[in-house]
């Protein structure tokens, strides 16, 4: 039994099959990348796995439990966490508060204790804050802690989302284009961070257009085109697959090399 199993997952929008009959599985500590051209269905697949969309067909199995279409907050309790391609930052909060929110499941407690500022509530909040500061340091944002989240650069917000997701101490982490919009140095940092997190036993599902990064850090690659899985395997295998090259890698590889 794998940690995360995706079985025949599918959904369509207005008759168009955005994702159709996709299968794969992810083990603890493994980095599995989903690649494919724009509109291939990668984000839609993530949305189904993370409970944002309810799949029309297929199943999502997490640690042996069927969790298909389960609301995201229930999946969070079961160890699933994600970031978003189109940033979902709490713009009305500071950077630190954004990171603390990732500790919600650890810091929440009785509402009455929060309303009356009881010692228990303060202690929970203090622990979460300490954890959040440590994570901000890990993604290089400790000095921005007290700034409004809205004032950060795009690349910093991407890292803030990763920090918030890591705060949940997930078993499975879904990263949707974590390096998009980041410069070479930032991309390198994110690359190391992902490898580090995977090494600690977290299963990582990665969508990323930066092919160099994907080829370097993935254990396994799943290729989507028009919502269907057209290939999967180790990076070396996939990059030799003629169908993949035709659909996607040809143009991208040229871009990456040139």
């Amino acid at each position, binding site marked *: 039994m794998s940690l995360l199993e995706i079985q025949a997952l599918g959904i369509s929008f207005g008759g168009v099959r955005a994702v159709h009959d996709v299968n794969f599985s992810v083990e603890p500590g493994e980095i599995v990348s989903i690649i494919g051209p724009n509109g291939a269905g990668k984000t839609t697949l993530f949305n189904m796995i*993370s*409970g*944002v969309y309810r799949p029309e067909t297929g199943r999502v199995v997490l640690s042996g439990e069927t969790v298909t279409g389960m*609301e*995201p*907050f229930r999946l*969070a*309790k079961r160890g699933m*966490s*994600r970031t*978003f391609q189109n940033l*979902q*930052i*709490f*713009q*009305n*909060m500071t950077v630190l*508060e954004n990171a*603390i*929110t*990732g500790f*919600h*499941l650890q*810091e*929440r*407690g009785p*509402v009455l204790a*929060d*309303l*009356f*500022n009881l010692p228990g*509530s303060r202690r*929970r*909040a203090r622990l*979460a804050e300490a954890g959040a500061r440590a994570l901000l340091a890990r993604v290089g944002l400790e000095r921005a802690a007290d700034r409004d989240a809205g004032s950060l650069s795009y690349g910093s917000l991407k890292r803030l989302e990763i920090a*918030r*997701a890591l*705060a*949940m101490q997930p078993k499975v982490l879904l990263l949707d284009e974590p390096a998009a919009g980041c410069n070479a140095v930032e991309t390198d940092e994110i690359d190391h961070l992902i490898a580090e997190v995977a090494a600690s036993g977290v299963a990582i599902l990665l969508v990323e257009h930066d092919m160099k990064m994907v080829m370097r850090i993935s254990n396994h690659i799943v290729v989507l085109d028009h919502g269907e899985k057209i290939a999967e395997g180790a990076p070396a295998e996939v990059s030799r697959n003629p169908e993949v090259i035709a659909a996607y890698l040809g143009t991208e590889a040229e871009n990456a090399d040139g």
Partner: protein
Amino acid sequence: MRISGKYWTLIFLAALIAVTPLFFPSGYYFRVGSLLFVNGLAVTGIVVLTGYAGQISLGQAGFAGIGGYACALAPVHWGVPPALAVVLGAAVSGVLAYLVGRPILRLKGYYLSVASLGFGILVAMVLNNERELTKGPDGINVPDIGLRGLLSDWGLNLTNGEFWYALTGICLLIGAWIALNLQSSPTGRALRALHGSEVAASTVGIDVARVKIQAFVISAIYASVAGSLMALQNKFVTPDIAGFLHSVEMVTMAVLGGVASVPGAILGAGVLTLLPQVLTVLAEYEQLILGLVMMGVMIFLQEGLVPSILRWFRGRDE
């Protein structure tokens, strides 16, 4: 120890409440002051619901009506002491908010505004039509809260105006303290998170529907206690307390001052409570003024008075 912003806000508010009476030209102003505090309390509840959680209720007056009529009816019919009737009203309001909110808050969008609007209208209708119980549109007497006699037994003799000024002032301080506690607490963060992004809030494990209901229940209790205090102070209550206009008035106060901040919302309550008192001619045009204020805020000061002014000052510093 460093005193946090929360306590500065409370100290400033307490000082203002304590010192202002020194400048009152007549006893009448105690009454204006306590009216302001009661409005401030109701509006603080809107900060929790709208400012923190981003949900809009157009039926807060319905809960004020329940709070007000609880104090009129419970002492007479069930012999509940008026001060306890406040608690009873708050409990009923909280339960009703839960029941109204539960089916609605699972849905995204503007359903709460519409449902709460309907709820407010329903409460006003019941208060108007159940004449046997509520005495209908003419209103009903509310018994004395009785605490003033208690105080004078202890040698503290206050006029009626002074007593209500002090009591409502203390209630407002407590209400502000609770709302400020909430803001920086785990629950408050969850509320503000869902305001920022529902999908991200859910992703980090926040049960969005559940915390929305918590915010709605809390705001209903604020409105209910405000309604009780209003009725007890006036010793009289009419169904107007639950009217749509009263709901709109509360939202306008919150929006005017800045719905995301407790001091802002209280300032908004202050301005809109004092304006008709200062310019009595305006009292006749209350609805018109509410409309104009709302439009003006939406067009010129979208965040409300306090945040806009703060931003302006900061902008000048840089």
